[in-house]
């Protein structure tokens, strides 16, 4: 039985449709990623799952309990980390942890094994006010506080926001480590590169789920030959390549531009063709290489189709 089951969920704020007919399931012990840009409806979905908002339509089930009628029971099983830093800035690290443990009726000693890998990293700063912590440490503390009562389900709304890349990497390693306790995790992020760290992901845009699969399943479904291209004039390069015959799409991707070709075009001599095309247009320092599609490429593809 899935731990989280969402069926045909809709929610609107006045004329704004935040969620539209959303359905998905999350299995026990899974890290399920909700990937989408700001304003896609991720936070609304989290608040509904945390039983803080009522949906207009549809149903949710958590651990076999009805999310609307049995919300009080569900709250006992939830660990919820809202998008904003939601700890008390004027309390110390230790006081925050103690407070949340007491409020949830848990004991730090009893559940220490669960948080130990994370808490030991911030323990040297346990007498520091939470407001004076770095972004990465705040996030680790928030995770400890959300875990201290051994929740069955962990809802993490954009835990990577405002955190440096190294801390973010560590954070994901901690989540992966938590899987062995059978904790089911729902994580949202606008960063496509974090998607690959999830077991399964849902790509969400304008309140709709565009695709649900494993990260490799999503990238494997990408049908187009893909190249990364770079030259001395990236601005005109993108504009010109979009006009080139056989090119489906071209968009900026880091320092490179990704060139997506029609699926029918054989990738054999394409590199040379593109090179020739760019040289004719007066580009220098041209660099072309075939590249594997990422989640972001798939997202852009789905968004435009």
């Amino acid at each position, binding site marked *: 039985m899935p731990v989280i089951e969402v069926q045909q969920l809709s929610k609107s704020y006045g004329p704004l449709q935040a969620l539209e007919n959303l359905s998905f399931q999350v299995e026990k012990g899974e890290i399920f990623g909700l990937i989408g840009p700001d304003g896609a409806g991720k936070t609304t979905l989290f608040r509904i799952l*945390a039983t803080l908002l009522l949906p207009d339509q549809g149903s949710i089930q958590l651990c076999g309990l009805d999310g609307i009628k049995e919300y009080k029971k569900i709250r006992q099983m939830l660990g919820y980390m809202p998008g904003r830093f939601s700890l008390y800035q004027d*309390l110390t690290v230790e006081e925050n942890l*103690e*407070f949340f443990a007491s409020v949830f009726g848990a004991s730090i000693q009893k559940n220490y094994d669960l948080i130990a890998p994370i808490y030991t990293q911030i323990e040297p700063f346990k007498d520091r006010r939470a407001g004076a912590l770095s972004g990465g440490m705040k996030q680790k503390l928030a995770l400890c506080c959300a875990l201290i009562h051994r929740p069955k389900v962990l809802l993490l709304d954009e835990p990577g926001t405002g955190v440096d890349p190294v801390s973010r990497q560590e954070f994901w390693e901690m989540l992966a480590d938590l899987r062995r306790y059978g904790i089911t995790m729902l994580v949202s992020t606008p960063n496509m590169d974090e998607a690959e760290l999830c077991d399964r992901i849902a790509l969400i845009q304008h309140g709709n789920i565009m695709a649900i699969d494993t990260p490799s399943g999503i990238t494997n479904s990408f049908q187009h030959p893909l190249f990364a291209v770079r030259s001395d004039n990236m601005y005109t390069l993108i504009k010109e390549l979009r006009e080139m015959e056989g090119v489906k799409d071209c968009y900026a991707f880091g320092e490179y531009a990704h060139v997506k070709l029609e699926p029918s075009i054989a990738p054999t001599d394409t590199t040379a063709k593109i090179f020739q095309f760019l040289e004719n247009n007066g580009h220098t320092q041209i660099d072309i290489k075939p590249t594997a599609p990422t989640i972001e490429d798939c997202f852009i593809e789905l968004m435009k189709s």
Partner: protein
Amino acid sequence: MTRFSAFVQKEFRHILRDRRTLMILFGMPVIQVLLFGYVLTNEIKNASIAVLDPAKTEESIALTNKLVSSGYFQLEQNLVSQEELDRSFRSGKIKMAIVFPSDFIVDPSKPSSIQLIGDASDPNTATSLIQYANAIIADFVQEKAQDTGMASNQLTIRTETRMRYNPEQKAVFNFVPGVMTLILMLVSAMMTSITIAREKELGTMEVLLVSPLKPVQIILGKTAPYLALTLLNALVVVLVGIYIFGMPLKGSILLLTAECVLYMFVALSLGIFISTKAKDQMTAMFISALGLMMPTMLLSGFIFPRESMPVPLQVIGSAIPATWFNPIIKGIMIKGTGLDVLWKQTAVLGGMAIFFLAVSLRNFKDRL
């Protein structure tokens, strides 16, 4: 540690670590008591008075009528004895009393004297009333002289002024209780409404709501620390009043404390009520300041006598807790009155507390 006590401990930490909160909590009461030293005089209309007139001579009746028809006074009671006079003052029914001698006549052969007794627990009002009465009596003598064709200096009525409860007419007797009502209202209502709004604003309310804490635990957990600190505050203000300004404390300390706790409870429940409506700290502050502070200062009778307000403002004033608490605290401290007199005000405050608490518990949502 239980859920609730952990919550209360957390609240204490918030308060004690925030310098601004502490300043408002402990700095403001003292500063205000020291600042409100002005004597604000205001015109008073229809003040309740009593007359003790054993002689009931033609002249005493004429003078009484003249006083009452001036518009400043309203005859509340015709007294028969000195004891009755004491009782009326203690119950706060009258603001001034006029005592005629048993042989009152206005005659050139013998100057007569009248006693004017003011309730100086409200010194502004008492002074104004005595002044009005003196002017009217002088006018009365003048007319009498003209009627009988005598020179005005041939007739005299001497007035003898006495002040009850506050013979030196210290304004502190008025503003120390007034500041107490204001401060207790401010700290209790404003601070609680802000502290709940702050949790909403910072996003911590989301986590609290998801936690097994019950709404009533959140509400009481928020109010308990303020109840304790405000009681301490009340004590500071009373001590400043007694030791710096020489206020008396004639009534029971126990009763005073109990009434303070009751009043604070009203204020706290009002604060929670505001917070259930306010989404952020600014809104909470705005509603508390505009909706509570100003009416408490202006309409409760703390600065301006309620007697001289237009009726609609008097009606609004009677919906303000401070209006009922002001006479309680003055009665206990200055006159030494007990529950036998103050039961009505106490009952009104009790009703208000229950009302606001019930409404806010109903309004407190355990969802966003």
